[in-house]
């Protein structure tokens, strides 16, 4: 229950980040999700990523829609403002919040129902806007909170707990993001923290819309045999294509990797993601190649994961609208009000 406080005990022995904070300083209230729910593992990865990046928790704004997945922002960063929007509409809240202050870190948590069913329109449009935020879809193929109906990401042939078989083709957020011009497209698995944490970090630091689809099994309604979103199925068909190692700015990078295999991509703030390709023919900066690779492997039932596409040069919403670099909400009124002379001048045009 969210009103349960976690015991605040001293953790003098815990490691501290550059701000002198321990990982506990990045936690939220106690999760109320089912034991074993994939969403809780993602929460842990989010906490780890923000801690590792040494970001002041209160400089983050966290937001979500409605669903089990959308409850999770209460479970991390209790010192950050959070907002639970209505079902499927978090992208518009994020757009407005970001419009008001472009200098905070924005992280949005959504579900497959929230983003791909009711919220598909808003999801696609926030991606089009290339809003500067990390957008995580905790993808379990069902509506957890309303007890197990198929969502739009359910695979053809996947069986619901009560035996119903899904017949409609799934909407894959990765394919959608790739084809609709997304500037950062990634997929991971709640059970692979080693892969997930650097992806979250890279997504936070990416200058634009970072879409991270995370397979996150619903142990209560969609983790049985014949479900394609179960832990067992995901593990069996898991296919990491690109590992992403996130390196904070000004640290040496090249030495650790074999040339040809490693591909450093510099982010806006000077930090770097080093992409280690599992397969030599994969190119995560070429949209068309990324797409055909995904398509090939998905035909075989493989779940391709990693930082699948990145374009750090795509302009984000504020660059396109040419907004001032300060937060609009902090501008002094004197900078906003044209004043009496201007009012007179304007009105004279209507004489």
């Amino acid at each position, binding site marked *: 229950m969210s009103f349960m406080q976690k015991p605040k005990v001293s953790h003098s022995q815990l490691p501290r980040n550059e701000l002198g904070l321990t990982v506990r300083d990045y936690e939220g209230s106690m999760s109320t999700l089912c034991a074993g729910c994939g969403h809780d593992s993602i929460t842990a990865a989010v906490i780890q990523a923000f801690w590792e990046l040494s970001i002041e928790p209160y400089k983050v704004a966290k*937001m979500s829609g409605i669903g089990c997945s959308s409850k999770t922002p209460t479970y991390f960063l209790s010192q950050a403002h959070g907002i639970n929007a209505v079902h499927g509409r978090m992208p518009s809240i994020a*757009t407005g919040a970001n419009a008001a202050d472009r200098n905070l870190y924005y992280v949005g948590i959504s579900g497959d129902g929230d983003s791909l069913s009711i919220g598909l329109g808003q999801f696609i449009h926030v991606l089009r806007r290339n809003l500067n935020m990390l957008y995580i879809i905790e993808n379990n193929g069902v509506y957890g909170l309303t007890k197990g109906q198929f969502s739009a990401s359910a695979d053809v042939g996947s069986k619901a707990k009560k035996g119903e078989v899904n017949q409609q083709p799934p909407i894959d957020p990765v394919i959608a993001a790739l084809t609709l011009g997304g500037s950062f497209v990634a997929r991971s698995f709640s059970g692979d923290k080693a892969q997930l944490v650097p992806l979250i970090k890279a997504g936070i630091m990416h200058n634009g819309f970072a879409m991270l689809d995370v397979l996150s099994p619903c142990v209560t309604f969609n983790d049985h045999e014949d479900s394609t979103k179960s832990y067992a199925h995901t593990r069996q068909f898991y296919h990491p294509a690109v590992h992403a190692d996130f390196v904070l700015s000004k640290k040496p990078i090249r030495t650790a990797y074999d040339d040809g295999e490693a591909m450093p991509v510099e982010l806006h703030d000077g930090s770097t993601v080093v992409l280690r390709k599992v397969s030599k023919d994969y190119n995560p900066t070429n949209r068309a190649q990324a797409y055909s690779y995904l398509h090939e492997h998905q035909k075989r039932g493989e779940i391709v994961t990693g930082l699948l596409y990145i374009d750090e040069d795509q302009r984000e919403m504020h660059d396109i609208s040419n907004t001032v670099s300060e937060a609009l909400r902090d501008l002094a009124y004197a900078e906003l009000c044209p004043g009496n002379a201007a009012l007179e001048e304007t009105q004279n045009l209507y004489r």
Partner: protein
Amino acid sequence: MPSRSNDFVIKIANVNGTGSASANGLLMKAIFRMGIPVVGKNFFPSNIQGLPTWFEIRVSREGYVARSGRVDIMVAMNAQTYARDLADVSAGGYLIYDSTWSRDKQLARDDVTLIGIPLAQLVNAQFENVRARILMKNVCYVGALAALLDIDMDVIKQLLKETFADKEKLIAGNLKAIELGYNYVKEYCDCPLPLRLEPMHATDGYIMVDGNTMAGLGCVFAGATVGAWYPITPSTSLMDAFKEFCERYRVDRGTGKHRYCIVQAEDELAAIGIVLGAAWNGARAFTPTSGPGISLMNEFIGFAYYTEIPAVLFDVQRVGPSTGMPTRTQQGDLLLCAYASHGDTRHVLLFPADPAECFHFAVTAFDLAERLQTPVFVMSDLDIGMNDWMIPKVHWDPKYAPDRGKVYSKEQLENMQIFHRYTDNDGDGICYRTFPGVHARGAYFTRGSGHNRHGGYTEDAADYQDVLDRLRRKHDTAKQLVPTPVIRSKKGVKTAIVSLGSCDGAVREALDVLAREGTEVNYLRVRGFPFSQQVEEFLAHHEQVFVVEQNRDAQLKSLLLLETTVDRNKLISILHYGGMPIDSRGIVSGISDALAKGAAA
């Protein structure tokens, strides 16, 4: 016929997409510049090209702004609607037609003087280009009217110069077309007509402007920085205006960067979401829309009410239900907006009556939204929003500072033990809020699900009710903050009108007509919801109250019945809802008939 100067109506019937709007605008402006009060109403189709459109100009020495119901001069430029346009002319009036082509002789009236002017022939002889011929035919009738009505040609020349700035060729072309019409009429017709214009000085200090422009300007002066919208008639020009003024006044001289952010959203659901996200994060944000947009926004409006996020919505009302008649006017969204969204919700509404109030109420709306931390609706309509009205120039108080309401600063947060979002520290139902990214102690979780006064999730009956009851108290606080009604009353008069918004001009004219007939009626114009105490008192002081509004279901009357203690037998509706702006005649007859019946009974 006796001369009737400065008191008549010119109606121009045309086809849309022919550029008649600028010709009509020129005509109206010229009259305005002669110092004569004038108002224009545009009746246009929901279409881009080829359908009938009318423009009605009322010249009124007295300064009446509603339609008069008369047509004294019809300019019949549309063969399709000729019969109907002729029928519309008031007895003793004039009809001007293009005599280039032979007219259907069946169509004539003994009581209407026909004036034929070969507009197409005159223009075609002088202009080669097809598009120019279409446009100039319209300019040509302006020239003809200038001669017939005695419009000052210098004023027209000056207006052309201002309109086309440095484009000499355009000025010359337009002037040529004007002169063609002018000279023809001077040569072949008796001019001026008994209906004519005489210069006055009644428009000094006034401007001619539409409500959407003034509302957009108001948003700039209010310090709004985020605007989100999805295009919909008749609200679109509000965001166009905001953008234009921002481009003029909010672009950093040095860097060229914008001190505003306008997002054209994918739909109205997103538009209101963007407004709420921005306001939650501390910016002044707004969305202009119309009824269909409000319908879509309902879920988020309830969210904003319950989570207490300020938002400013402009509902430029048009005719419903459904798509209805998008280019016609109505006041049909009163109930929709007053209680928008599921559950116990109630909202603050402002009712501007003209473009000047659109400007002022835009500013008020932001102050109230932030003071009360709730959505505020500015209930304009197509008539106010899109037609040009004559208003006194608005003035700006240089001492104005935005009322940001109760917001804890970084310093305040630094010095407090603990922050709770929904505790009523001051007893007015209004709590303190914090902005993201300011201080860790200010952090809280905004949720549309059940929450207690500390902002925590709850399913507990008492905790839930505690917050809901406070929200009701807050709404009661709003009664003292909304703009007070405008009252025109005489002691001892027991009959009254209560009305709102764009009915004002028609009501005021009706009051004058009734007074001339010996019937004194008092008047209250509601300017805000929830109703202030003065509304309650005014209703109590009168025995019979006519509620004048532009919708079928008597929505203002319903609100008065629901939200005041008025005796329902006192209230009599006068309703107008065909989509044309209301005029005084229905009000006068409605009241006269009811009073006569009452006297007979």
